[in-house]
């Protein structure tokens, strides 16, 4: 499209406006980062805007010395490892049979409806909580990982991807004597690596960001994953997990800078991987949301 002279004012306005919109999305994060690196006295008076004043690492040193913070980080790491692996494995194993034609797999409709219904009808908070409790999963990492073991949305994404794989591939494998199991792992999985990467990333981000299940299924706060931990410290502002030594240390830095440091640390892994993974997500989102 040729650029008309009279439209140049629009272009300038448009660039400025969009730059402003983009900044509005980043400023809150930058502000918190600046506060976390500022000395407590300056931060408490609200003088810090987008650049740290009186630069100090005190709040990060304090967080680094908190055993409870590291414990929650380790639990989150375990969670994304187990959770990601289970989600990926089960997504593959559910999507493969469902990607078959009705004639090939007679109970396909029954299975797909069973999975689909759980997407639109949930039991609600209390019955789910009671089931987890009666299975004896409270205070274990399995309470965080198993209830969402099969991510149905990812299954739909992957089964649509599997369907695009040319039939000739699996047919020739069948001729060579391969069963479904071999065909799945030797042909479908290697061919689908981009889709699988997208699904895995969805799952990892989802597990990292979950906080409510940690809050309700862990009776003991020392079992909290990091987002649940941050929720109690930053949002509920409850410091019940603090030891007397920590409380003494805490007096030397402000509440505000310490909260900011923990907020930032909770978002850090996402911010680090985000630039590299964004493209994957864009593809995955568009594929999953608006297919014909």
């Amino acid at each position, binding site marked *: 499209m040729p650029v008309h002279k009279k439209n140049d004012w629009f272009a300038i306005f448009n660039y400025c406006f969009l730059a402003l919109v983009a900044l509005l999305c980043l400023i809150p994060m930058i502000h918190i980062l600046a506060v976390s690196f500022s000395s407590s006295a300056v931060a408490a008076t609200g003088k810090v805007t987008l650049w740290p004043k009186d630069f100090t690492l005190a709040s990060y040193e304090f967080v680094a010395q908190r055993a409870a913070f590291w414990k929650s980080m380790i639990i989150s790491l375990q969670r994304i490892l187990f959770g990601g692996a289970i989600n990926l494995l089960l997504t593959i194993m559910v999507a493969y049979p*469902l990607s078959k034609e009705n004639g090939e797999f007679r109970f396909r409709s029954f299975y797909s409806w069973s999975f689909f219904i759980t997407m639109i009808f949930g039991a609600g908070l209390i019955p789910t909580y009671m089931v987890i409790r009666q299975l004896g999963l409270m205070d274990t990492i399995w309470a965080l990982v198993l209830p969402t073991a099969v991510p149905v949305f990812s299954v739909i994404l992957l089964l649509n991807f599997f369907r695009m794989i040319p039939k000739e591939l699996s047919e020739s494998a069948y001729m060579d004597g391969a069963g479904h199991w071999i065909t799945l792992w030797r042909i479908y999985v290697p061919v689908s690596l981009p889709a699988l990467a997208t699904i895995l990333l969805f799952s990892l981000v989802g597990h990292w960001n979950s906080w409510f299940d940690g809050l309700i299924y862990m009776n003991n706060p020392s079992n909290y994953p990091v987002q649940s931990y941050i929720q109690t410290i930053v949002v509920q502002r409850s410091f019940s997990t603090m030891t007397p030594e920590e409380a003494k240390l805490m007096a030397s830095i402000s509440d505000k800078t310490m909260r900011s440091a923990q907020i930032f640390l909770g978002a850090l892994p996402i911010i680090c991987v985000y630039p590299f993974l964004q493209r994957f997500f864009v593809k995955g989102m568009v594929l999953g949301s608006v297919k014909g």
Partner: protein
Amino acid sequence: MLRKRWTREIPLHLIILPGFLFLIVFSYLPIGGIIIAFQKFIPAKGLFGDQQWVGLSNFQYVLELPNFSSIMWNTFYIAVMKIILGLFVPIVIAILLNEVKHAGMKRGVQTAIYLPHFLSWVVLGGIFIEILSPTDGLVNKVIQLFGFEPIFFLGDNKWFPITMILSDSWKEFGYGTIIYLAAITGINPDLYEAAQIDGANRWKQTLNVTLPGMKMVIVLLMVLNLGNLLNAGFDQIFNMYSPMVYESGDILDTFVYRIGLLDAQFGIATAVGLFKSVVALILVSVSYFIAYKVADYRIF
């Protein structure tokens, strides 16, 4: 032939079995637990234990609560406003972004606006509590700079719902923008050329080519959003509300949490949850039906 078909089919059942078992235990068993809504439930006796049946009295109790109508209104109001804003803002930004010819600028803006979508409401709630603080928050500093009185966004019943609606739109508009941008990219460039030859300026081209080209995706997302009519956003509100704003900010989900897990009134909380699930099921079914009719959208 029949036997051969079975031997070929059985492995498929075995492959799907583990996932199906998880589904039974963690999705269908809880759905069975909905019976709690009709019981005077005592947790110690267990989910399928010998509980006292009370019929519909849990539902009746909730309906007669003095604040139930305000909770329904809050849920509905916040959800509808979020849906409207969540539709409007991304469309405008996508159209403006499509006019940007500089590739680096385009990518930069996309990257920036998409980021909040990936951060949890715990992190963002923490950030908003800081920057919206009436005494030393960044936003109120700016407001005071222009000579206005500071606003207690999260503690004032007049401002709380608006704050929820705007901050949700702030978090999610980047995600919507990318979907709409993909839809615009799919529009046939010949149409723009033809419009230009007919003398259409950029505004006319937007009205007569871009918007009609996006129509399908807009309708589809609008219809699919219908299913969320009773989801005003638990994660967000739970992380930013306080007893001060229960009056204007309490929604069905936060209400269930408080009476269910905090007050241990399991039967009543399940009744509210069931009510919500049934309404959601109806809305989702209707919206998928419309999506199928209008946009030929199918899930499988």
